């Protein structure tokens, strides 16, 4: 069982809030000056100065140690997608399709290939690079059939004793009526349960958004890695803010309260290791990000090799068994 997290850096949060207020002020001024500058060139230098100031403030904000920065980076449109990690980490990938029951879910990919010279079964939700692709992949939000496909290939991994590699980047399980009708909850519960006792190693890498039960349904593992700027949360900060303050715009505060960063999750012993990202985030140098993950995977794959399967499954149980924080009255 973990101990209580250290206090949030409320001073930093306050400074960030102040910077934000300044930024908002500058942006308001820009809004005032831009039409004039565009109209007759007047005050063009004022506008330039304001824009420089805004950029400065944004940069300063990004340097602050606050949770929202991770949220922004985890959701950054240029952030490498799970499918890019998959392509970089898995050689000779063959995608397998379908749950053998109802439908092939394009929001989640599953298949077989080689990782660091070992045969592995891989799972990854797909997000799109543009609107069209995003719609095709349902914004990386799986239906029950996506989770059932994932479980099917995990069972294949178990049959052959191959490790499962799950690359996690999903905002949530799809909240739709058809998903509910086909047992979204059942599918997630089933996956979670089967993953706690799957008789083969499971490695999880949270690369972007780890969105609640929809993420956990592919994120129970012997080793859970998390990229430095990825997030993992029981509820999106917007939803949390809406519930707490009936104001979804206070998501920054909620993000801080939820303790959803890699550092927090490691302190809570939910994540086993933080994978550092290139300065400015994984999208600044994707290849380096891939290489760092690859190095970590190599290390863990080798370590897991040495553990007899009965021990591995017992350890996995014990690991999740310990999670939580409560007090016992005498």
């Amino acid at each position: 069982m973990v101990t209580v997290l250290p206090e949030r850096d409320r001073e930093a949060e306050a400074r960030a809030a102040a910077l934000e207020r300044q930024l908002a002020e500058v942006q308001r001024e820009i809004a005032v000056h831009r039409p004039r500058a565009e109209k007759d060139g007047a005050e063009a230098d004022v506008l330039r100065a304001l824009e420089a100031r805004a950029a400065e403030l944004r940069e300063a904000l990004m340097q602050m140690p606050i949770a929202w920065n991770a949220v922004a980076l985890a959701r950054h449109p240029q952030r490498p997608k799970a499918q890019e990690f998959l392509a970089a980490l898995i050689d000779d990938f063959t995608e397998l399709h379908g749950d053998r029951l109802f439908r092939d879910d394009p929001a989640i990919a599953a298949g077989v290939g080689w990782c660091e010279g070992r045969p592995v079964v891989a799972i990854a939700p797909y997000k799109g690079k543009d609107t069209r692709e995003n719609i095709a992949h349902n914004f990386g939000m799986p239906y029950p059939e996506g989770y059932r496909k994932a479980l099917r290939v995990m069972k294949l991994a178990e049959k052959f004793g191959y490790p499962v590699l799950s690359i996690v980047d999903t905002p949530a399980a799809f909240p739709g009526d058809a998903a509910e009708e086909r047992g979204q909850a059942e599918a997630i519960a089933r996956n979670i349960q089967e993953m706690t006792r799957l008789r083969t190693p499971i490695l999880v890498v949270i690369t972007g958004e780890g969105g609640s039960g929809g993420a956990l349904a592919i994120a129970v593992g012997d080793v859970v890695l998390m990229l430095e700027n990825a997030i993992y949360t029981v509820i999106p900060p917007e939803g949390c803010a809406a519930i707490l303050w009936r104001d979804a715009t206070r998501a920054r505060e909620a993000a801080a309260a939820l303790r959803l960063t890699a550092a927090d999750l490691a302190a809570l012993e939910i994540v086993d290791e933080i994978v550092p990202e290139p300065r400015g985030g994984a999208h600044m140098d994707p290849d380096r990000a891939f290489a760092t993950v690859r190095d970590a995977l190599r290390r863990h794959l080798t370590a897991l090799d040495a553990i007899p399967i009965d021990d591995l499954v017992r350890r996995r149980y014990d690991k999740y068994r310990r999670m939580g924080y409560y007090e016992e009255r005498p």
Partner: protein
Amino acid sequence: MLNWLRRPKYGSIERRDTPAGLWTKCPKCGALITTKELERNLKVCPKCGFHHRLTAEERLAVTLDENSFEETDAHLISGDPLRFEGYPEKLAEAHEKSGNPDAAIVGFGTIEGYRTAIGALDFPFMGGSMGSVVGEKITRIAERAVEAHLPLVVFSASGGARMQEGALSLMQLAKTSAAIARLHDARLPYLSVMCDPTTGGVTASFAFLGDVILAEPGALIGFAGRRVIEQTIRRKLPDNFQAAEFCLEHGLIDMVVPRPELRATLARLLRFFGAPRVAATPPIATAGPAEATSTAVTATAGSEDV
């Protein structure tokens, strides 16, 4: 709060006479029913069959045989691992309101003489939300069931995972599901009963992992909330969406059982699945013209108020 089975402190269950002249208005049909009559009818509206929600204590009282409940793990209470603003206050308030230290009560008892491990979530306590204490209690009672070689019955009533414990509450899905897996591996029966409402993280873990899944009529059962879904699909959902009957039709649960038949149904299933029979005793509370006498089930532990 309803008072026919209110217990003054957690760890014991008590039934009291209702002051005459108290009335409850049915939220479904609008009928005014004397609270006493409603209680005698297990809080099912005699006019329209609407199932009023029960607290965890009430649930155990109408399900278990008299004097059979032995509470376990009553001493677990929530901390504030995230230092989440306002959480300690919310916990205190919920405790005040419900009389419980958290949103689950677990222990052992008998149903028509069939001995079983049992758990019930308490919706009045922060919407029955699952934080570390609820997760730990469900996990422990599952492990205790394995040790004691007994079946497990869990009544769910929950809005989902407890936000204020962040990812730790999310991990309770894995912890409880793993413990239920051990129960299955030990070939012990697990009966899950979904009461109104059972949603979010609780559905996505132990509630949907029963050998048999029962639900009360009209209970709301689903993963995502109606409002979120309506926003996503930009359509109004039908009234019966995510109702127990809807889930039955969609093959997600085994049966919808009206409350007056639930105890007998559970007993029948426990007998079928080989629960040991220790004694045939009357239930704590039954439908019908029962005398509202003062009876109590005393817990084995944790009867000290906090």
